[in-house]
């Protein structure tokens, strides 16, 4: 009975039950450990599972509760993060062979904030090598597998985050998103994932990939949990000069606010160009639900998103190649061929073109807002433009098919990172292969509160986020 509650419930409910002593942090943690140990051979979502440490943390929290002390908004909640969040003195592999035994000399600001909120650290999670890969393939640490069917991809690069949250081994996870790396695993694994506005959340103490487009974002079982984690980790950090000092209302409090009379935009161009019929049908069903909630649906024409994707493909390899230049020269063969092949174009892009691509961002963002969002509150887009593919179908390594495969999987996610705007991936059903799919809801810069408001309302009238993989069903 305890197990079912823990599997079916969420952060907010479990935190409340622990605080009221209806559950102990140890019971919750032990159940998650049992689930993680059961799932790991099939899914390979953990790089390290810290059983003893997690139980010790839980026992310490239970002692705090017995003394009447506050345990925080994540008190007793088992989480684990993509293995690129540094914790001083601990190994952070970044999913690579190169950093297999590398120990961090600092702790990520977001981990410090989550520590203060009382979470139980369950270990570190699998990921694409150096957060580069849209599928979940990893030759160094083994491919991560989808909890709904382990023959299918998890999406990447936060593969372990999607798989571990989807399998209910943990309640939430931090991933990172440079071109869709939170939203794609969220889509494929049936969980909620946020790519925040550039500058909302500190990136200090995490492995960089592309300075201009990297973001930190949570994956969770539902929207309200996601809002809670974002509330905890957002905000200015003097150690990350790209964070912005601005006051934002509580996102969790915005879940539940009415959306009647608000407007959703649906793009006429780009986003549905390669979408399958099944995905188009799913998005239409989402729009019908919002319409039934009193929201106006309006078609919009966006600027040339192909050009925006091209520009992001100038910025990404230029920055990644700058970060990886020494290793690319000195230990080239320690990279998976696909990862190396994605960085090496950076050797050939002239600095003036890279800088021009960065300079164009404000202009293109302004055009995007003026054309797409001046008359609506948010846009609805597909998460992945087609059904989740099998692992075998996406074994493209560095073949000529690689660029095409990556481009098509991240078709709907990549432009957002160049533009810097937020986007939330929300489960919206299952395709005929039995795998989850999702819609994205995106808006103006720093409109996370509005995105959570729409998405939470959707989850109040649907049950997709409550569905469980077969292995967990009764």
């Amino acid at each position, binding site marked *: 009975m305890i197990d079912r509650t823990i599997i079916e419930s969420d952060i907010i409910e479990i935190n409340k039950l622990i605080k009221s002593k209806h559950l102990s942090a140890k019971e919750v943690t032990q159940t998650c450990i049992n689930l993680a140990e059961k799932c790991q051979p099939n899914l390979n979502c953990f790089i390290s599972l810290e059983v003893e440490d997690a139980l010790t943390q839980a026992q310490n929290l239970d002692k705090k509760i017995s003394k009447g002390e506050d345990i925080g908004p994540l008190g007793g909640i088992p989480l684990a993060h993509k293995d690129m969040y540094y914790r001083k003195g601990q190994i952070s592999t970044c999913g690579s062979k190169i950093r297999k035994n590398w120990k961090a000399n600092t702790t990520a600001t977001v981990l410090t904030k989550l520590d203060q909120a009382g979470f139980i650290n369950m270990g570190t999670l699998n990921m694409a090598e150096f957060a580069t890969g849209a599928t979940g393939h990893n030759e160094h640490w083994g491919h991560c597998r989808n909890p709904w069917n382990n023959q299918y991809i998890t999406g990447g690069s936060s593969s372990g985050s999607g798989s571990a949250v989807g399998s209910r081994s943990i309640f939430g996870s931090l991933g990172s998103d440079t071109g869709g790396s939170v939203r794609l695993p969220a889509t494929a694994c049936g969980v909620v994932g946020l790519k925040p*506005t*550039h*500058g909302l959340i500190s990136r200090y103490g995490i492995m960089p990939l592309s300075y201009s487009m990297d973001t930190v974002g949570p994956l969770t079982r539902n929207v309200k949990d996601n809002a809670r984690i974002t509330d905890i980790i957002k905000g200015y950090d003097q150690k990350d000069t*790209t964070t*912005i000092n*601005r006051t934002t209302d509580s996102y969790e409090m915005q879940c539940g606010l009415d959306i009647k009379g608000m*407007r959703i935009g649906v793009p006429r161009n780009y986003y549905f160009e390669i979408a399958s019929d099944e995905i188009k049908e799913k998005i239409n069903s989402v729009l019908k639900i919002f319409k039934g909630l009193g929201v106006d649906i309006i078609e919009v024409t966006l600027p040339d998103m*192909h*050009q925006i994707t*091209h*520009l992001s*493909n*100038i910025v990404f390899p230029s920055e990644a190649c700058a970060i990886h230049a020494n290793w*690319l*020269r000195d230990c*080239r063969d320690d990279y998976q061929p696909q990862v190396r092949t994605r960085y*090496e*174009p950076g*050797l*050939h*892009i*002239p600095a003036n*073109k890279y*800088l*021009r*691509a*960065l*300079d*164009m*961002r*404000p*202009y*293109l*963002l*302004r055009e995007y*807002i003026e054309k797409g*969002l*001046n*008359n*609506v*509150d948010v846009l609805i887009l597909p998460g992945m433009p087609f059904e989740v593919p099998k692992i075998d179908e996406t074994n493209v390594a560095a073949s*000529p098919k690689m*660029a095409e495969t990556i481009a098509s999987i991240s078709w709907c996610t990549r432009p957002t990172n160049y533009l*810097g705007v937020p986007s939330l991936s929300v489960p919206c059903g299952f395709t005929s292969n039995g795998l989850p799919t999702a819609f994205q809801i995106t808006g*103006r*810069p*720093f*409109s996370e509160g509005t995105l959570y408001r729409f998405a939470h309302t959707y989850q109040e009238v649907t049950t997709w986020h409550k569905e469980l993989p077969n292995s967990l069903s009764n």
Partner: protein
Amino acid sequence: MQRVKPDTVANISQDFAEKELEINQRESLAKSLGVLLNAIDSVSKDLPLESEPADFLAVLEELSQERIK
């Protein structure tokens, strides 16, 4: 005429990592680089030159206001 020459790509890669690219790799890379460089030139051709790079964070903040009703 192809904008980026496969031989140029091969030479840069050779100089950097002392690894020779296969013919199909250098041709494919040259082609995709050409598309990217054409895209940036096309998008930026009508825009004014800036004396300094634009402050992207300030623009994000400015554009964060609610929609114009």
